């Protein structure tokens, strides 16, 4: 295995494109290094992207918040403006692992690892986040939802990497939230995760709603029909009940030791209701 630490995106993508055998981007390494220790792991090349300029920065631009692919999740919480604009995305990212893991793990890595239970992904999808993908053919913007394809598989082509995640600008009266269910209080893999993102009219009526579900399918699920049921409501009890039923219906989880199909579907509804309430209250405060 070769280790490279390029200083520009072009160097990184040409290294990745030219690699013989398997090549991996190294961001925080909290998934990759665990895999590396496995007996069946093989790599010709590991490209550490953290020395590329801008990779460790969070920038507030006309597009919104641009989170470099080397930014550890702990830094999202330390960025006051980002935290104020997207508390749901930040709390989802901060649920990943322990303090030690937070010092290294990135949202881009969480996305590219393509685990169905990745915590930051439903929150980013609900937020309408885009991935800035760079490759030998240039740069393209890809909705975050289109990066993972199936467990461990992404839509990135050979030579491509995520340069940054872009969260859109926030209008007034907008709020988001992410909740997950785990059997412990810390350090566990989501049995179900739900991200909700709402914007409200001046009278408190929901104008736009986005809901995404984690760990209830082979990849993040966009619960579009469920989200639509919230539009025009003020999150009355009946609206929340409708949302919960629609989220349960949108879930197609597996049975495993962490939870049964019936349990996961039920929890998807419960968490959606609670996350919607939190997002709504946050939106009302702005």
């Amino acid at each position, binding site marked *: *295995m*070769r*280790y490279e*630490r390029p200083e520009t995106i072009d160097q990184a993508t040409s290294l990745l494109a030219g690699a013989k055998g398997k090549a991996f981007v*190294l961001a925080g*390494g*909290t998934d990759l*290094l*665990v895999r*590396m*220790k496995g007996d069946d792991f093989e790599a010709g090349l*590991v490209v*550490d992207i*953290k020395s590329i300029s801008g990779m460790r920065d969070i920038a507030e631009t006309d597009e919104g918040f641009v989170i470099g692919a080397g930014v*550890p999740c*702990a830094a999202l919480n330390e960025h006051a403006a980002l935290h104020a604009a997207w508390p749901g995305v930040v709390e989802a990212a901060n649920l990943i*692992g*322990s*303090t*030690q*893991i937070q*010092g*290294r793990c990135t949202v881009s890595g969480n996305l590219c690892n393509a685990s169905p239970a990745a915590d930051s992904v439903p929150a980013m999808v609900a937020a309408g986040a885009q991935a800035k993908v760079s490759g030998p053919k240039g740069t393209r913007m890809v909705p975050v939802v289109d990066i993972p394809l199936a467990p461990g598989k992404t839509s990135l082509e050979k030579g491509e990497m995520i340069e940054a995640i872009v969260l859109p600008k926030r209008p007034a009266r907008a709020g988001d939230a992410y909740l997950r269910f785990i059997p412990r*209080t*810390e*350090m566990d893999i989501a049995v179900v995760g739900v991200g909700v993102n709402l914007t409200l009219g001046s009278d408190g009526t929901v104008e736009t709603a986005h809901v995404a579900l984690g760990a209830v399918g082979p990849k993040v699920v966009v619960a579009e029909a469920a989200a639509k049921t919230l539009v025009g409501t003020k999150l009355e009890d009946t609206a929340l009940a409708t949302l919960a039923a629609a989220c349960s219906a949108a879930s197609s989880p597996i049975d495993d030791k962490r939870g049964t199909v019936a349990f996961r579907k039920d929890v998807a509804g419960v968490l959606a209701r609670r996350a919607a309430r939190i997002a709504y209250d946050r939106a009302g405060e702005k």
Partner: protein
Amino acid sequence: MASIAVSTTINGDEVDFICQPDESLLDVLRNRLGLMGAKEGCGTGDCGACSTMVDGRLVCSCLVLGAEVEGTKVETIEGMAEGGDLHPLQQKFIENAALQCGICTPGFLIAAKALLDQNPNPTETEIRFWLAGNLCRCTGYDKIVRAVQDAAAEMRGETA
């Protein structure tokens, strides 16, 4: 595999070492540099026994490549006491009997110091969440949490 030459700073000293591309920082510290304080409990980021600071962030050194610390500042448990003077956390761990076998202790101390450096007056809940990535098989967490609280109070100048 081609070896990599790395220059870094460890506990304030400039250090050069050579490592394999897939070698963890933990293995470099222990096997190449003789810094045996950080321990390997799991090797997969779950136990925190290998806790180390890299450029001011608390990390699991088992999940960092040695090659990655080029040009960084690394802090390990070996740098915690100043000469013969124990850090208040170390002193309070002893006084509170917050260790038995001691395998987890360097990790707890490094992690607790990182907490107190940014939050001198944490609540018990904050301490417990911050230390959730540090596992202890023998002592139980109450004594550890109490030792951190005592050290924090002393560092705030509240007790002699």
